């Protein structure tokens, strides 16, 4: 199935256009020609089993993979040969799977670390409203936070930068249900404000509650795309993909 065929219902123009993306870790070839796109203002998820290549895709978009080929266009700019920091300046921000909290920085310093790239980031008050734990622990060393608190911090800090295109890799992992719901609401709110989000999720119930479309990743390829409205109709197919 090609990308053109599935692209019917979504509004807006593609902010991210990925064509024939290949990716390697050293010698091992992990991405085998990914084709997909994300429109401006959309929330799109990547679903797939462990090891399918979701994280690798995210890293490839962000320019964090040493070896990649194909085409990744962000807002029309070809980024396949750009370094991560130049991609970041196009307004892309990442919340990595392993969270990337800095232990030599306090919570607040972690929060202030990513430079402001554009206007319109969330204010500190709003972030503390969303994640009260962080306010309470803001003077602590970043890695002294509990696993879940670190996850919150990783999300919070890219909301400040003003980047409107977020790559979230399993943002709900290890979070209490209340917080998961809160993150769901946050994502919805961000979408309202015009953010574009690529979300990697294991928890597809959560994914279904926030996303417009879902791409299914298998062995380094996009094997299917399901519109969120059509999810119920396709639930068996999806279960088969995910091996449930």
């Amino acid at each position, binding site marked *: 199935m090609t990308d053109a065929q599935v692209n019917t219902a979504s509004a807006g123009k593609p902010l991210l256009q990925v064509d024939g993306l290949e990716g390697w870790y050293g010698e091992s070839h992990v991405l085998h020609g990914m084709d997909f796109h994300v429109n401006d203002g959309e929330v799109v998820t990547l679903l797939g089993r462990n*090891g399918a290549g979701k994280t690798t895709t995210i890293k490839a978009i962000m320019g964090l993979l040493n070896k990649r080929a194909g085409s990744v266009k962000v807002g029309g700019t070809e980024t396949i040969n750009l370094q991560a920091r130049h991609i970041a300046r196009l307004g892309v921000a990442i919340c990595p799977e392993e969270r990337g909290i800095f232990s030599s920085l306090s919570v607040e310093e972690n929060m202030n670390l990513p430079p402001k790239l554009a206007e319109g980031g969330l204010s500190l008050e709003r972030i503390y409203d969303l994640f009260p734990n962080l306010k309470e622990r803001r003077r602590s060393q970043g890695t002294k936070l509990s696993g879940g608190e670190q996850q919150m911090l990783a999300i919070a800090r890219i909301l400040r930068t003003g980047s409107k295109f977020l790559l979230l890799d399993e943002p709900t992992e290890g979070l209490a249900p209340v917080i998961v719901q809160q993150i769901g609401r946050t994502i919805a709110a961000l979408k309202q404000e015009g953010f574009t989000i690529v979300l990697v999720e294991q928890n597809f119930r959560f994914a279904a509650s926030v996303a417009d479309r879902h791409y299914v990743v298998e062995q380094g390829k996009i094997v299917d795309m399901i519109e969120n409205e059509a999810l119920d109709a396709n639930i068996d197919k999806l279960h088969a993909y995910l091996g449930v």
Partner: protein
Amino acid sequence: MSTNENTKTATPAMHRSVGMPGHMKIIFVVLLAVLIALPFMVYPVFAMKVMCFALFACAFNLLLGFGGLLSFGHAAYFGMASYVCAHAAKVWGLTPELAILAGTVTAALLGLLIGSLAIRRQGIYFAMVTLAFAQMVYFFALQAEFTGGEDGIQTVPRNDLLGLFPMGDDIVFYFFVLFITFGGILFIYRITHSPFGQVLKAIRENEPRAISLGYHVNRYKLTVFVLSATFAGLAGATKSQVFHLASLTDVHWSMSGEVVLMTLLGGMGTVLGPIVGAVIVVTMQNYLAYLGAWVTVIQGVIFVIGVLMFREGIIGVLSKIFKKPL
């Protein structure tokens, strides 16, 4: 499922029922053959020096490459053993094997003392604690009467082996040294490939997990520390018999640095790396001596090139090429 997981099937760590893998047996046999022929090809004292340092580097590698502990004070064991052995041979008139034993035991005890304090610390702190203690040992060697201070212990005699066989001839003594060092290296190989070695590897990989499995991690670290110090001492003691002298050079921190260099240059965590590293460094010192003032510059250039070109050490690189642990 993932293609990746199936590509590498015959992994090197695959279990075999025989003790030593075939290619290692061949390498050791060839090595032994070379060593037997060596004194007839190069200057025997030089050959003995190389072997002492090879053993020293292997002992150090046992701790760093297999125990995951970087000691920056191994000169302490090497040097103290060298002093005690020299003193035993010269003042007490002990035979070579007993003098060397005395030196080795001293190193083991020193290792036990320093090790039991140092292993409580990790990483660079561990390295610094060992350095600190080694500096104290150096200070002791400088101040103590019996070490002869700056002059060292000179004119150390080589008494008759077992009180029977004269050892004055370098070629004869060479074979005694060969026995000690080659035996030591084989023993170290065995340690790294023993049940104990497996546990060490596990501890190095993931210490908290090893603890949670019930391992008293510190006892293992201490054991490997003492073993390493002991073999370092064996090397140092033997060296003092080879050269008829023990001096401050052997306890100075730059000696600790040298053994780190040898190991890294050859390839830490490999069996042959330290040996190759020792050969290179000792040869370099020996032959560069004729280049006069440029010696340090050339030495520096070699280290820089070594680090930039052979990051995993020479043997580390070779072992990658041949896809076999060497």
